[in-house]
Each structure stands twice: as structure tokens, then as C-alpha cells.
């Protein structure tokens, strides 16, 4: 009796619970595994090949040797600067427009916002990044070439514009949520004191939603930083500091995407590329931490 009951309980409860538990814990293990592999592979540059972290981060001499002996130079500054420059420019272009759209769809015309803008934003989010890159390559690059009379249209500017279009829907939808959740008493109070809608928006609404908007910007930045193929199609992949916005350069993700296939496993070149991947991973963790700090601030304020 007792054993059959136990068997019954096994089928009725423990089996399902066990499977769910294993899968749940698997997610944690997977995350740790990804972190460990990246750390293990990425740190080879500094342990096995004896390069300093300062060389990797602050030197622009990039000549890793594709052998296990090493002895090359692994300064990744050009790629890092390329990533930062394109992302910063993309934010600069994208944020004002995103905020306008977010305010429009929540406060100016919620009806149009709900019927047209929101579905449009959702579709925009889903468009594959290579399609953005492709359109950037066949429309934007020739356009930049003819408008600015430069030799190649592939440039920092082209990459920034492609990224700006890509992160636009992310920033818009997250900051629209933030604006929607602003206490309506603040808004009524502002109107009650006689402010116009614009005065209400920039004196009350935006400051009240600033934490959520910052979160939206960080999310957009994270997406821009990790984007690989769309950027690599329009950035020109030139290993040099850009002397203007119209000059080609390279960034972390494009370098990994284009060089990993040709780098011998176990070689210095390979290790240097893994270090760049590790850097990307650390940056994405930093973005998560910033978002947590922001939401903590929000909690403290409320």
C-alpha cells in the first residue's frame, strides 16, 4: 500500500516537479557556463600570450599573430572607439525622435498611438537586423556617397544611422511605458496650475518619467552595442581611426564576425578575438547593472 502510494506520488508530483526543477536550474547553469567559457577563452590573451589589459584596451596596434607562439600586438582601441562612436552617434540621432514618438502615442493622440504607432513599433522591432543592414548598404551608402562626395559611402555616419533606426522602436516602446506610468495627479496638477500641454510635458512629464526613459536609452544602447552584421555591412571595416564621420572604421562586433572564421583555434589572433567577445559580455553585464541601479532609484523615489 505504502509503496504503491509512493509510486503514485512519484507520477503525480515528483516527476513533473523534477523536470521543471532541472529545466529551471539548467538556465542558471547555462548562464554560468557561458560566462565561464568566455572568461576562460577571453583571458588567454592576458595569461598565455602575456599581453597587459592596458595594451588591449588602450593601444591601437593590432597585429595579432595567427600562431600558438604569439608575439603579435593586440591593441583593440580602434574597434572599441568604433563601437563607442557609432553607438553614441546612434543615440544622439535616435533619442529625440523616440521621445517625440513616445509622447505622441501616450499623451497627444493615444488613439492614433494605439491603432497605428504601437503596431508599427512592434513590426519595427521584429525586422531582422540583416535587412536593416541590407537596406543601409543599397540605399544609405550610395546616398551618403553622392550627397557628401566621398569615395566610399561606408562610414561611421552610415553605421550610426542604421543603428539609430534599429534602436528607435526599443527606446520608443520602453519610454512610452515609462510615460504612461507617470502618476496622473502630477499631470492634472500641472494643468490645474494653468500650464499648456507643452509646458506640462517638459516641466512635469519628462522629469517624472526620467528614470524609465534612461532605462529605455540603456536598453537601446545595449542593443546597438551588441549588433554585429548590420553594422559590419555599412561600417567599411577599415582598421583606422575615423578622421571624420564620413570615414570608414571598424568595431568590436564586425571584427569578431569577419575574422573568427579565419583565426586558428588556440592561436593568438583567436584569443584576441575571444577577449573582444569577453569585453562585449562584460559591457552587456554593466548595462544590466545600470538598469538595476536605475530601477532601484525609482523604487527609492516612490
Amino acid at each position: 500500500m505504502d509503496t504503491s502510494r509512493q509510486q503514485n506520488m512519484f507520477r503525480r508530483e515528483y516527476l513533473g516537479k523534477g523536470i521543471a526543477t532541472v529545466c529551471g536550474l539548467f538556465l542558471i547553469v547555462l548562464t554560468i557556463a557561458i560566462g565561464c567559457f568566455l572568461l576562460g577563452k577571453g583571458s588567454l590573451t592576458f595569461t598565455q600570450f602575456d599581453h597587459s589589459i592596458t595594451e588591449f584596451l588602450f593601444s591601437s596596434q593590432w597585429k595579432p599573430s595567427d600562431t600558438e607562439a604569439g608575439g603579435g600586438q593586440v591593441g583593440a582601441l580602434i574597434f572599441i572607439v568604433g563601437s563607442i562612436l557609432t553607438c553614441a552617434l546612434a543615440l544622439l540621432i535616435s533619442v529625440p525622435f523616440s521621445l517625440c514618438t513616445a509622447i505622441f502615442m501616450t499623451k497627444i493622440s493615444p488613439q492614433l498611438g494605439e491603432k497605428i504607432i504601437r503596431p508599427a513599433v512592434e513590426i519595427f522591432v521584429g525586422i531582422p537586423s540583416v535587412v536593416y543592414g541590407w537596406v543601409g548598404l543599397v540605399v544609405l551608402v550610395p546616398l551618403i556617397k553622392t550627397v557628401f562626395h566621398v569615395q566610399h559611402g561606408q562610414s561611421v555616419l552610415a553605421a550610426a544611422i542604421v543603428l539609430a533606426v534599429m534602436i528607435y522602436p526599443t527606446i520608443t516602446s520602453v519610454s512610452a511605458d515609462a510615460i504612461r506610468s507617470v502618476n496622473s495627479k502630477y499631470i492634472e496638477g500641472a494643468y490645474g496650475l494653468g500650464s499648456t500641454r507643452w509646458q506640462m510635458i517638459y516641466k512635469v512629464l519628462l522629469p517624472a518619467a526620467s528614470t524609465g526613459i534612461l532605462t529605455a536609452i540603456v536598453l537601446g544602447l545595449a542593443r546597438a552595442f551588441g549588433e554585429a552584421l548590420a553594422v559590419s555591412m555599412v561600417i567599411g571595416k577599415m582598421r583606422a581611426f575615423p578622421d571624420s564621420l564620413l570615414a570608414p572604421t571598424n568595431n568590436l562586433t564586425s571584427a569578431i564576425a569577419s575574422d573568427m572564421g579565419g583565426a586558428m583555434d588556440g592561436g593568438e589572433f583567436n584569443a584576441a578575438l575571444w577577449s573582444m567577445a569577453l569585453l562585449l559580455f562584460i559591457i552587456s553585464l554593466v548595462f544590466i547593472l545600470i538598469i538595476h541601479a536605475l530601477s532601484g532609484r525609482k523604487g527609492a523615489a516612490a
Partner: protein
Amino acid sequence: MTVDMTNSDKQYLRGVDSGLRRAHLFDEIATAAFYIVSGSFVLLLIAFTLYVVWGGVQAISPEIFSFSETGIGNQFFNTVYLVFLSLVISVPIGIAAGIYMAEYAPEGRVTNSLRIAIETLSSLPSIVVGLFGYLVFIIMVNTQWNLFSGALAVSILSLPLITTTTYDAFKALPLGWKHGSLALGATHWETIWHVMLPASVGPIMTGIILAAGRGFGEAAALLYTAGMSTDINWSVWDITSPVCPLNPFRPGETLSLQVWASRTEATSASAGDVAAAASAVLMIMVLVFSIGARLLSRHLAKKSEGENA
């Protein structure tokens, strides 16, 4: 004296009046700006979509849609097959993990680590996932680029999405349903399996559709896992053969990689046409999927409203 006061009053009122007028002018300018920016956003989307689809239509030729080296038929099949494989892997694990998180995980350390893990996974750059997949599924098992490894890499990307949708769906259920089932003598798992999971099928389906849509467009994670070549023979149906379409352990280039390849290794003159057609197909699939997810969630919202009324 009184005249003086009215004068300053007038002046004061005039000042107020011009201030108000300025405020209202600014208000109207701002409103116009909001309309213009949002309108151009919608126009941009329409122009973008039309451009890509039109480019694809112009590139149409019987050759493009053929299942051969110069067409996109094989890549289309690879894409669908890869997304299917990745869903077979990630849907059960994701749903089970979501159930664990919502129902079984003890509050505190475990739930927090799960949250952090999900957040980390969902914010990983896809190229990093691709590298991890390359290392673990290709180099460490000492094999060639293959579809199955690509599917595993895409699964890593879609797992957090499916887990969180399951979690949210479970947390949104009325507590009474769970309590009712438990009170009738069902075990916790029976309650989950027979009551809570069927009730959350709708939102979970929406999440799966979104995950599939993301899988279709994924490229960076597949670059070094699924590979950039396709060599299949549609007359071979022996699943162990490396040229059999259904063999998951063969290299398989997807549509999005084909678009990318046309830029980096444009070997044939028709590469531009192929990329245009592949982009258009990707775009149409994304539209179908996001509209499908939207219709489904609207349908479900209506249904649940009816139930409540």
C-alpha cells in the same frame, strides 16, 4: 493715482497676455512637431517595407525561387527547418523553466539567480552566443558546421523569452483556480498540468510566435554554427546522408546569412538580386508573424472578456 494703477495693471496684463500667447504658440509648435515626427516614423516604416518588398518583387525570376545554388529555395527551407528544430529544443525547456520559476522555485536566492540568469541571457549580444555555440557545439565535439548546432544557438536566444512569457502567464492566472484544484485533491503538478498550463496556452503561444519570428531573422549567432554553405540534394531521403534535406547534422545557410553573404562574398552577378529576394521573404515572414501574434493575443483578450462577462 488710479490712472497710474490701471496703467501698470494694463502693462502687467499685457505682459501676462504675451506670456500666455507665447506659451500657447510654443504649445502649438510642439504639438505640430510631435505629429510630424510620429507621422514620419510611420511613413519611414511603410517606405522601408515597400522598398524591401518591391526590391524582392523586381528580383523575381524562376531562378531565384529555385531550390538550387542560385536561388533562395534551399535557404528558405533551411531557415524554416532550423527554427523548427530550435523550437523543439527551447519550447519544452523554456516552459518547464517558467513553471519552475513561477511555482516551485523558493523565493529568495534561487528566484533571484534565475532572474539574473534570464536577464543576462536575454541581453547577450547574438554574436557572443554564436561564438559560444561555435566553441561548444562545433569545436569541442569536433564536428563541422551544422544545422543542429545553429538550432541550439538560436535556442539559447529564445529560451529567456519563452521562460518569461510562461512565468508571466502563470502569475496572471486567478489564484482561485489553483486553490480550487488543490482543494479537490490534485497534487501541485497535476494542478499545473491540468489547470494552469491549459489556461495559459494563449500567452505562451504568443511568446512562441515571437520567438520564432526572432529566430527567422537571426544571423550573427548562426555565422559560426549553422555555417554559410548549403549542399542538399532533393532526391536523397536517407536521413544519414550529408546531402539529405532533413539531416540536421549538415551545414545549412539561412536566408539572413544569405543576405549577409551577398555583401561579403559576392561571387555571382546575381548576388544583389538574391539578397533582395531573400530580404523581401524575411520581411514578409516577419510581418506575417507579428500580425499573427497580434491577432492571436487580441482574439484571446476578447475570449477572456467574454468569459468574465
